[in-house]
């Protein structure tokens, strides 16, 4: 193992040569990248290019066909370096605590109140007391500006509010990084802003984030790096100024000309 100076030598998330095959379909064909602590990485690309699959492989909602993901240097799929034993589901559940995920469809649990949604995993998974979790839950709801909705049921909230609750639910696990899969894509246009505002605030607070998005404004202004995915490969990668300003790849240029007005 090589030694580097400083804590930041270990990336928060390291993806190494990730492959994912569904039957005969090669969805990810060798993806590697690092996310440093506190960085916001936006992932863009056409529908079907493998963005969701990549996020889902990172927290192992999908099992990669090969390759590895490291969270703070810890391999997600194996107990150690090299050919060490594959992790059990229980161990993977332990590692998943450290990755918050926000889905396109919110996926709130409709039978629980807003606060109930937020404190469920801290209580069941982190073993917090209800009191401790409630204090934490209220703090997380305040971060998404919904503290006054804590007793409502999700069905009574707008889509934008539901998505912000979903963000608070992920934050309540105090994850090392947050994964967003098109968090505004199923929202009416007038509701996307309230969600993007919260995400920009998280970014400014130093939250480590990977954001799959079609919101080019967010990708350009709020992220430290942008990845352009095409057919299961990273086709273009760099700081937003470069990817948006002077893309090297022809496909990226075409994609941006369609999506940036």
């Amino acid at each position, binding site marked *: 193992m090589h030694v580097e100076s400083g804590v930041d030598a270990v990336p928060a998330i390291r993806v190494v040569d990730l492959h994912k095959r569904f039957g005969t379909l090669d969805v990810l064909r060798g993806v590697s990248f690092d996310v440093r602590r506190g960085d916001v990485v936006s992932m863009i690309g056409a529908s079907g290019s493998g963005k969701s699959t990549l996020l889902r492989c990172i*927290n192992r*909602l999908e099992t990669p066909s090969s390759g590895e993901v490291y969270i703070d240097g810890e391999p997600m799929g194996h107990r150690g370096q090299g050919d060490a034993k594959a992790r059990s*589901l*229980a161990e993977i*559940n*332990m*590692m*998943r*605590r450290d*990755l*918050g*995920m926000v*889905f396109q*469809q919110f*996926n*709130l*649990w*409709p*039978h629980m109140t807003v606060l109930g949604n937020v404190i*469920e*995993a801290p209580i*069941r*998974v982190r073993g917090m007391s209800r009191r401790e979790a409630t204090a934490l839950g209220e703090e997380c709801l305040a971060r998404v500006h919904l503290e006054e909705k804590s007793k409502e*049921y999700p*069905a*009574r909230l707008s889509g934008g509010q539901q998505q912000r609750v*979903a963000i608070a*639910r*992920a934050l309540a*696990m105090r994850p090392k990084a947050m994964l967003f899969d098109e968090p505004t894509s199923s929202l009416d246009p007038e509701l996307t802003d309230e969600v993007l505002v919260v995400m920009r605030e998280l970014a400014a607070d130093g939250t480590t984030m990977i954001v799959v998005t079609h919101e080019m404004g967010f990708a350009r202004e709020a992220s430290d790096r942008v990845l352009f995915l095409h057919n299961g490969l990273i086709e273009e990668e760099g700081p937003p100024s470069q990817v948006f300003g002077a893309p090297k790849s022809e496909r990226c240029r075409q994609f941006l000309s369609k999506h940036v007005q």
Partner: protein
Amino acid sequence: MVSDALAEALDLTTFWEYREVLLRGLAFNVYTFLAAATVSIAIGLAAALLRVNRLRPLRWAGTVHVELFRNAPDYIMVVWVHFVLPLLLGKLLGSRIEFDPFVSAVIALGFVYSGYFAETFRTGIQAIPLGHLEAARACGMSERQILWRITLPQVVRRMLPEAVNIFVSQFKATTIISLIAVPDLMYRVGMVLQQEMKPLPLYTGAALTYFIVVYLFAGTVRALSERWRNRIYA
């Protein structure tokens, strides 16, 4: 003639005279129902979980359970469990076995209706959006926690109206347990009949009693659960 018979049928004084002994019989219907319903829910849930399992042999076992018990007539199951099952078990264990009639009734009605509950549970489980489960997995919840905290609480709310219908059928089915001499309401009506020879008011009274119990039970459950059930819908 007709009006005489009608007047006699509607004259419930005989039923009222024997109310105490008769209502104590009704208690047996209620006990049998409560115990059988508990058995049905537990076994129905287990069978439903088999039916949604990834492993084909387990799914198959669940299907066999459902088809076997949903298609077995209550009447025959009660008689079979009481008279045939003890013989079979006795042969197997090499000893004489007898079931208490109440136990036979609970087993028979419990298993028959577990087939219906299994199907209702399965439909409910499969109606839960996959995203709800993935959100829970992403938080690090275990599959067992997801079942008890995320899936089943929603399933129960969705299936409750259908479950009330099954409960009603199951309660009505308890009227046949007098066949194996559980001293329920119908059994006692039969005993009183031997003394009073007034079948019309006694049967009318019994019918009314069952009707009132079922009607109140179903109505109360529906009314009390409505808000709680419908919170999950927009």
